[in-house]
Protein backbone atom coordinates (compact mmCIF):
# COMPACT_ATOMS: atom_id res chain seq x y z
CA UNK A 1 0.00 0.00 0.00
CA UNK A 2 1.21 3.52 -0.79
CA UNK A 3 1.96 5.50 2.37
CA UNK A 4 -0.40 8.19 1.15
CA UNK A 5 -3.27 5.69 1.29
CA UNK A 6 -2.48 5.00 4.94
CA UNK A 7 -4.36 7.76 6.71
CA UNK A 8 -2.99 6.78 10.11
CA UNK A 9 0.62 7.00 8.95
CA UNK A 10 0.21 10.36 7.20
CA UNK A 11 -1.71 11.85 10.14
CA UNK A 12 1.06 10.73 12.49
CA UNK A 13 3.64 12.15 10.08
CA UNK A 14 1.95 15.57 10.07
CA UNK A 15 1.45 15.45 13.82
CA UNK A 16 5.18 14.76 14.19
CA UNK A 17 4.72 11.58 16.19
CA UNK A 18 6.48 9.10 13.84
CA UNK A 19 9.80 7.74 15.06
CA UNK A 20 12.98 8.34 13.03
CA UNK A 21 12.88 4.93 11.39
CA UNK A 22 9.33 5.45 10.12
CA UNK A 23 10.17 8.94 8.87
CA UNK A 24 13.20 7.61 6.98
CA UNK A 25 11.12 4.87 5.37
CA UNK A 26 8.49 7.39 4.31
CA UNK A 27 11.02 9.85 2.94
CA UNK A 28 12.79 7.10 0.99
CA UNK A 29 9.49 6.20 -0.58
CA UNK A 30 8.75 9.83 -1.43
CA UNK A 31 12.01 10.13 -3.38
CA UNK A 32 10.88 7.35 -5.72
CA UNK A 33 7.16 7.97 -5.92
CA UNK A 34 6.09 11.09 -7.77
CA UNK A 35 2.31 11.00 -6.87
CA UNK A 36 3.01 10.54 -3.14
CA UNK A 37 5.68 13.26 -3.20
CA UNK A 38 3.32 15.71 -4.91
CA UNK A 39 0.48 15.03 -2.55
CA UNK A 40 2.55 15.34 0.61
CA UNK A 41 4.26 18.46 -0.72
CA UNK A 42 0.87 20.05 -1.29
CA UNK A 43 -0.32 18.94 2.15
CA UNK A 44 2.73 20.65 3.64
CA UNK A 45 1.90 23.79 1.70
CA UNK A 46 -1.65 23.65 3.01
CA UNK A 47 -0.35 23.36 6.55
CA UNK A 48 1.70 26.51 6.05
CA UNK A 49 -1.13 28.35 4.33
CA UNK A 50 -3.62 27.52 7.10
CA UNK A 51 -1.20 28.27 9.91
CA UNK A 52 -0.56 31.75 8.47
CA UNK A 53 -4.27 32.51 8.22
CA UNK A 54 -5.33 34.71 11.13
CA UNK A 55 -8.30 34.10 13.40
CA UNK A 56 -11.09 36.31 12.03
CA UNK A 57 -12.74 38.59 14.56
CA UNK A 58 -16.41 39.58 14.70
CA UNK A 59 -17.45 43.16 13.94
CA UNK A 60 -17.41 45.73 16.74
CA UNK A 61 -20.46 45.63 18.99
CA UNK A 62 -21.06 41.92 18.42
CA UNK A 63 -21.82 41.19 22.10
CA UNK A 64 -24.27 44.10 22.27
CA UNK A 65 -26.07 42.77 19.20
CA UNK A 66 -26.36 39.33 20.83
CA UNK A 67 -27.85 40.87 23.98
CA UNK A 68 -30.27 42.99 21.94
CA UNK A 69 -31.46 39.88 20.09
CA UNK A 70 -31.74 38.02 23.38
CA UNK A 71 -33.93 40.71 24.92
CA UNK A 72 -36.08 40.89 21.79
CA UNK A 73 -36.54 37.11 21.84
CA UNK A 74 -37.37 37.09 25.53
CA UNK A 75 -40.01 39.78 25.02
CA UNK A 76 -41.54 37.76 22.19
CA UNK A 77 -41.52 34.58 24.25
CA UNK A 78 -43.06 36.47 27.15
CA UNK A 79 -46.00 37.47 24.97
CA UNK A 80 -46.40 33.90 23.73
CA UNK A 81 -46.36 32.57 27.29
CA UNK A 82 -48.98 35.07 28.43
CA UNK A 83 -51.21 34.41 25.44
CA UNK A 84 -53.03 31.35 26.89
CA UNK A 85 -53.77 33.26 30.08
CA UNK A 86 -55.10 36.19 28.06
CA UNK A 87 -57.20 33.81 26.00
CA UNK A 88 -58.74 32.31 29.13
CA UNK A 89 -59.43 35.82 30.39
CA UNK A 90 -60.99 36.84 27.10
CA UNK A 91 -63.28 33.82 27.10
CA UNK A 92 -64.29 34.53 30.66
CA UNK A 93 -65.04 38.12 29.75
CA UNK A 94 -66.98 37.04 26.67
CA UNK A 95 -69.13 34.73 28.77
CA UNK A 96 -69.79 37.50 31.27
CA UNK A 97 -70.74 39.99 28.56
CA UNK A 98 -72.85 37.44 26.72
CA UNK A 99 -74.91 36.87 29.83
CA UNK A 100 -75.19 40.58 30.52
CA UNK A 101 -76.58 41.10 27.04
CA UNK A 102 -78.70 37.99 27.00
CA UNK A 103 -80.48 38.74 30.22
CA UNK A 104 -82.48 41.80 29.00
CA UNK A 105 -83.22 39.90 25.82
CA UNK A 106 -84.49 37.00 27.85
CA UNK A 107 -86.91 39.30 29.66
CA UNK A 108 -88.16 40.67 26.33
CA UNK A 109 -88.51 37.25 24.74
CA UNK A 110 -89.87 35.44 27.75
CA UNK A 111 -91.84 33.00 25.66
CA UNK A 112 -88.71 31.77 23.91
CA UNK A 113 -86.81 31.35 27.15
CA UNK A 114 -86.44 27.54 27.05
CA UNK A 115 -84.88 27.77 23.58
CA UNK A 116 -82.52 30.60 24.55
CA UNK A 117 -81.52 28.81 27.74
CA UNK A 118 -80.78 25.64 25.84
CA UNK A 119 -78.65 27.49 23.24
CA UNK A 120 -76.81 29.34 25.95
CA UNK A 121 -76.18 26.13 27.84
CA UNK A 122 -74.76 24.44 24.74
CA UNK A 123 -72.47 27.41 24.08
CA UNK A 124 -71.28 27.65 27.65
CA UNK A 125 -70.76 23.89 28.01
CA UNK A 126 -68.59 23.95 24.90
CA UNK A 127 -66.42 26.69 26.30
CA UNK A 128 -66.41 25.08 29.72
CA UNK A 129 -65.17 21.79 28.30
CA UNK A 130 -61.98 23.56 27.22
CA UNK A 131 -61.49 25.69 30.30
CA UNK A 132 -62.70 24.53 33.67
CA UNK A 133 -62.28 28.02 35.04
CA UNK A 134 -64.66 29.33 32.42
CA UNK A 135 -67.13 26.57 33.23
CA UNK A 136 -67.13 27.47 36.91
CA UNK A 137 -67.74 31.08 35.98
CA UNK A 138 -70.60 30.08 33.69
CA UNK A 139 -72.30 28.11 36.43
CA UNK A 140 -72.02 31.04 38.79
CA UNK A 141 -73.46 33.33 36.14
CA UNK A 142 -76.34 31.00 35.49
CA UNK A 143 -77.19 31.17 39.17
CA UNK A 144 -77.05 34.97 39.07
CA UNK A 145 -79.22 35.22 35.97
CA UNK A 146 -81.73 32.95 37.66
CA UNK A 147 -82.36 35.52 40.39
CA UNK A 148 -82.68 38.27 37.74
CA UNK A 149 -80.65 40.84 39.62
CA UNK A 150 -79.02 42.92 36.85
CA UNK A 151 -77.06 45.07 39.28
CA UNK A 152 -75.38 41.97 40.66
CA UNK A 153 -74.55 40.76 37.14
CA UNK A 154 -73.02 44.14 36.29
CA UNK A 155 -70.99 44.19 39.50
CA UNK A 156 -69.76 40.66 38.83
CA UNK A 157 -68.77 41.59 35.24
CA UNK A 158 -66.76 44.58 36.36
CA UNK A 159 -65.03 42.62 39.13
CA UNK A 160 -64.15 39.82 36.71
CA UNK A 161 -62.75 42.34 34.25
CA UNK A 162 -60.52 43.96 36.89
CA UNK A 163 -59.30 40.57 38.15
CA UNK A 164 -58.44 39.48 34.62
CA UNK A 165 -56.52 42.65 33.87
CA UNK A 166 -54.56 42.36 37.10
CA UNK A 167 -53.85 38.71 36.33
CA UNK A 168 -52.58 39.46 32.83
CA UNK A 169 -50.46 42.39 34.00
CA UNK A 170 -48.97 41.06 37.24
CA UNK A 171 -49.21 37.31 37.58
CA UNK A 172 -49.02 35.85 34.07
CA UNK A 173 -45.67 37.43 33.07
CA UNK A 174 -44.05 36.14 36.29
CA UNK A 175 -45.41 32.66 35.67
CA UNK A 176 -44.16 32.77 32.10
CA UNK A 177 -40.69 33.90 33.17
CA UNK A 178 -40.50 31.25 35.84
CA UNK A 179 -41.61 28.59 33.37
CA UNK A 180 -39.04 29.62 30.81
CA UNK A 181 -35.96 29.92 32.99
CA UNK A 182 -36.53 27.75 36.03
CA UNK A 183 -37.93 24.86 34.05
CA UNK A 184 -41.24 25.13 35.90
Amino acid at each position, binding site marked *: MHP*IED*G*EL*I*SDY*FDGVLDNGQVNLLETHLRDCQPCW*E*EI*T*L*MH*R*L*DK*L*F*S*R*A*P*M*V*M*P*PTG*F*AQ*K*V*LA*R*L*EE*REARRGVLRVLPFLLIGALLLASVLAFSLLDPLRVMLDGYMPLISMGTKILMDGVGALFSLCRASTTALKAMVAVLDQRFVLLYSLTALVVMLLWARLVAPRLAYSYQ*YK*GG
Partner: protein
Amino acid sequence: MEEDWIRRSAEGDHGAFALLVEKYQGQVYSLAYRLLGDRGEAEDAAQEVFLRVYLRLKDYDSKRQFSTWLFAIASHHCIDRLRRRRLVISFEDLPPKRSVAVERSPIEGVVLEEEQAEIRQLLLSLSPEHRLVVVLRYWHDLSYAEIAGITGEGEGAIKSRLHRARRILAQGMKGSQVGRVALEEERCTL
Protein backbone atom coordinates in the same frame (compact mmCIF):
# COMPACT_ATOMS: atom_id res chain seq x y z
CA MET B 1 -14.62 32.94 37.34
CA GLU B 2 -16.07 31.35 34.19
CA GLU B 3 -18.09 28.94 36.31
CA ASP B 4 -19.58 31.93 38.08
CA TRP B 5 -20.50 33.61 34.78
CA ILE B 6 -22.13 30.39 33.59
CA ARG B 7 -24.11 29.95 36.81
CA ARG B 8 -25.30 33.56 36.83
CA SER B 9 -26.17 33.43 33.11
CA ALA B 10 -28.26 30.32 33.73
CA GLU B 11 -30.14 32.31 36.39
CA GLY B 12 -30.95 34.99 33.81
CA ASP B 13 -28.15 37.49 34.48
CA HIS B 14 -27.54 39.22 31.12
CA GLY B 15 -24.44 40.99 32.40
CA ALA B 16 -22.72 37.70 33.20
CA PHE B 17 -23.79 36.30 29.85
CA ALA B 18 -22.28 39.34 28.09
CA LEU B 19 -18.93 38.43 29.69
CA LEU B 20 -19.19 34.90 28.31
CA VAL B 21 -20.01 36.28 24.85
CA GLU B 22 -17.05 38.66 25.02
CA LYS B 23 -14.74 35.80 25.94
CA TYR B 24 -15.83 33.36 23.23
CA GLN B 25 -17.08 35.61 20.43
CA GLY B 26 -13.83 35.43 18.44
CA GLN B 27 -13.69 31.66 18.46
CA VAL B 28 -17.35 31.14 17.65
CA TYR B 29 -17.36 33.77 14.92
CA SER B 30 -14.15 32.43 13.40
CA LEU B 31 -15.54 28.89 13.37
CA ALA B 32 -18.74 30.10 11.71
CA TYR B 33 -16.82 32.16 9.15
CA ARG B 34 -14.50 29.31 8.17
CA LEU B 35 -17.42 26.90 7.89
CA LEU B 36 -19.88 29.18 6.12
CA GLY B 37 -17.43 31.26 4.08
CA ASP B 38 -19.49 34.43 4.38
CA ARG B 39 -18.97 37.21 6.93
CA GLY B 40 -22.61 38.32 7.11
CA GLU B 41 -23.94 34.81 7.52
CA ALA B 42 -21.18 34.00 10.00
CA GLU B 43 -22.20 36.94 12.18
CA ASP B 44 -25.84 35.91 12.11
CA ALA B 45 -24.95 32.28 12.85
CA ALA B 46 -22.62 33.21 15.71
CA GLN B 47 -25.31 35.39 17.29
CA GLU B 48 -27.82 32.56 16.98
CA VAL B 49 -25.34 30.16 18.57
CA PHE B 50 -25.02 32.39 21.64
CA LEU B 51 -28.81 32.70 21.92
CA ARG B 52 -29.10 28.91 21.86
CA VAL B 53 -26.34 28.61 24.42
CA TYR B 54 -28.19 31.01 26.73
CA LEU B 55 -31.44 29.09 26.48
CA ARG B 56 -29.71 25.74 27.07
CA LEU B 57 -27.46 26.83 29.92
CA LYS B 58 -29.73 25.22 32.48
CA ASP B 59 -29.00 21.86 30.80
CA TYR B 60 -25.23 22.41 30.74
CA ASP B 61 -23.30 19.72 32.58
CA SER B 62 -20.49 21.47 34.47
CA LYS B 63 -18.38 18.29 34.32
CA ARG B 64 -17.99 18.95 30.62
CA GLN B 65 -15.60 21.62 29.38
CA PHE B 66 -17.65 24.70 28.50
CA SER B 67 -15.72 25.48 25.30
CA THR B 68 -16.29 21.93 23.99
CA TRP B 69 -20.01 22.21 24.72
CA LEU B 70 -20.12 25.63 23.04
CA PHE B 71 -18.23 24.41 19.96
CA ALA B 72 -20.57 21.44 19.68
CA ILE B 73 -23.59 23.76 19.55
CA ALA B 74 -21.81 26.08 17.09
CA SER B 75 -20.68 23.22 14.85
CA HIS B 76 -24.11 21.62 14.67
CA HIS B 77 -25.77 24.94 13.95
CA CYS B 78 -23.36 25.83 11.13
CA ILE B 79 -23.56 22.38 9.57
CA ASP B 80 -27.36 22.58 9.68
CA ARG B 81 -27.14 25.90 7.87
CA LEU B 82 -24.84 24.42 5.23
CA ARG B 83 -27.19 21.51 4.66
CA ARG B 84 -30.18 23.85 4.31
CA ARG B 85 -28.20 26.10 2.01
CA ARG B 86 -27.35 23.18 -0.28
CA LEU B 87 -31.02 22.90 -1.08
CA VAL B 88 -31.22 26.54 -2.08
CA ILE B 89 -27.98 27.55 -3.76
CA SER B 90 -24.81 25.94 -5.00
CA PHE B 91 -21.90 26.93 -2.80
CA GLU B 92 -19.71 27.68 -5.79
CA ASP B 93 -22.22 30.25 -7.01
CA LEU B 94 -21.38 32.53 -4.09
CA PRO B 95 -19.10 35.44 -4.94
CA PRO B 96 -15.70 35.53 -3.21
CA LYS B 97 -15.76 37.66 -0.12
CA ARG B 98 -13.21 40.15 1.08
CA SER B 99 -11.23 38.70 3.91
CA VAL B 100 -10.14 40.02 7.27
CA ALA B 101 -8.93 43.57 7.62
CA VAL B 102 -5.61 43.52 9.43
CA GLU B 103 -3.06 46.32 9.78
CA ARG B 104 -0.37 45.34 7.26
CA SER B 105 1.74 46.86 4.50
CA PRO B 106 0.01 47.07 1.08
CA ILE B 107 2.04 44.17 -0.34
CA GLU B 108 1.44 42.00 2.70
CA GLY B 109 -2.20 42.95 2.50
CA VAL B 110 -2.47 41.80 -1.11
CA VAL B 111 -0.70 38.51 -0.35
CA LEU B 112 -2.91 37.92 2.66
CA GLU B 113 -5.99 38.77 0.62
CA GLU B 114 -5.01 36.25 -2.04
CA GLU B 115 -4.28 33.60 0.56
CA GLN B 116 -7.60 34.18 2.27
CA ALA B 117 -9.42 33.82 -1.05
CA GLU B 118 -7.47 30.63 -1.74
CA ILE B 119 -8.27 29.23 1.71
CA ARG B 120 -11.91 30.07 1.29
CA GLN B 121 -12.10 28.34 -2.08
CA LEU B 122 -10.30 25.28 -0.76
CA LEU B 123 -12.56 24.98 2.26
CA LEU B 124 -15.64 25.36 0.11
CA SER B 125 -14.54 22.32 -1.89
CA LEU B 126 -15.00 20.14 1.21
CA SER B 127 -18.20 18.63 2.54
CA PRO B 128 -19.47 20.27 5.76
CA GLU B 129 -18.26 17.34 7.88
CA HIS B 130 -14.73 17.40 6.40
CA ARG B 131 -14.61 21.18 6.62
CA LEU B 132 -15.54 21.11 10.30
CA VAL B 133 -12.67 18.76 11.17
CA VAL B 134 -10.16 20.89 9.23
CA VAL B 135 -11.33 24.13 10.84
CA LEU B 136 -11.30 22.74 14.38
CA ARG B 137 -7.87 21.22 13.87
CA TYR B 138 -6.12 24.13 12.15
CA TRP B 139 -7.79 27.25 13.53
CA HIS B 140 -8.79 26.07 16.96
CA ASP B 141 -5.82 23.80 17.60
CA LEU B 142 -7.98 21.04 18.99
CA SER B 143 -6.76 17.49 19.49
CA TYR B 144 -8.47 14.50 17.87
CA ALA B 145 -10.04 13.70 21.25
CA GLU B 146 -11.45 17.21 21.61
CA ILE B 147 -12.85 17.18 18.06
CA ALA B 148 -14.35 13.76 18.76
CA GLY B 149 -15.97 15.25 21.87
CA ILE B 150 -17.58 17.94 19.75
CA THR B 151 -18.80 15.79 16.88
CA GLY B 152 -19.68 12.78 19.04
CA GLU B 153 -17.55 10.40 16.94
CA GLY B 154 -14.51 8.27 17.67
CA GLU B 155 -10.95 9.58 17.47
CA GLY B 156 -10.12 7.11 14.71
CA ALA B 157 -12.97 8.42 12.57
CA ILE B 158 -11.78 12.00 13.09
CA LYS B 159 -8.22 11.10 12.19
CA SER B 160 -9.20 9.39 8.97
CA ARG B 161 -11.62 12.19 8.08
CA LEU B 162 -8.89 14.76 8.52
CA HIS B 163 -6.60 12.71 6.29
CA ARG B 164 -9.32 12.41 3.67
CA ALA B 165 -9.89 16.17 3.86
CA ARG B 166 -6.16 16.83 3.44
CA ARG B 167 -6.12 14.64 0.34
CA ILE B 168 -9.12 16.40 -1.16
CA LEU B 169 -7.52 19.77 -0.44
CA ALA B 170 -4.19 18.66 -1.92
CA GLN B 171 -5.94 17.44 -5.05
CA GLY B 172 -7.81 20.72 -5.31
CA MET B 173 -4.60 22.65 -4.85
CA LYS B 174 -2.83 20.65 -7.53
CA GLY B 175 -5.04 22.20 -10.17
CA SER B 176 -4.60 25.74 -8.90
CA GLN B 177 -1.94 28.31 -9.63
CA VAL B 178 -0.81 28.26 -5.99
CA GLY B 179 -0.40 24.49 -6.09
CA ARG B 180 1.59 24.51 -9.32
CA VAL B 181 3.89 27.21 -7.95
CA ALA B 182 4.35 25.25 -4.72
CA LEU B 183 5.36 22.08 -6.57
CA GLU B 184 7.70 24.01 -8.84
CA GLU B 185 9.41 25.63 -5.84
CA GLU B 186 9.84 22.28 -4.09
CA ARG B 187 11.32 20.73 -7.24
CA CYS B 188 13.84 23.56 -7.43
CA THR B 189 14.95 23.00 -3.84
CA LEU B 190 15.62 19.28 -4.39
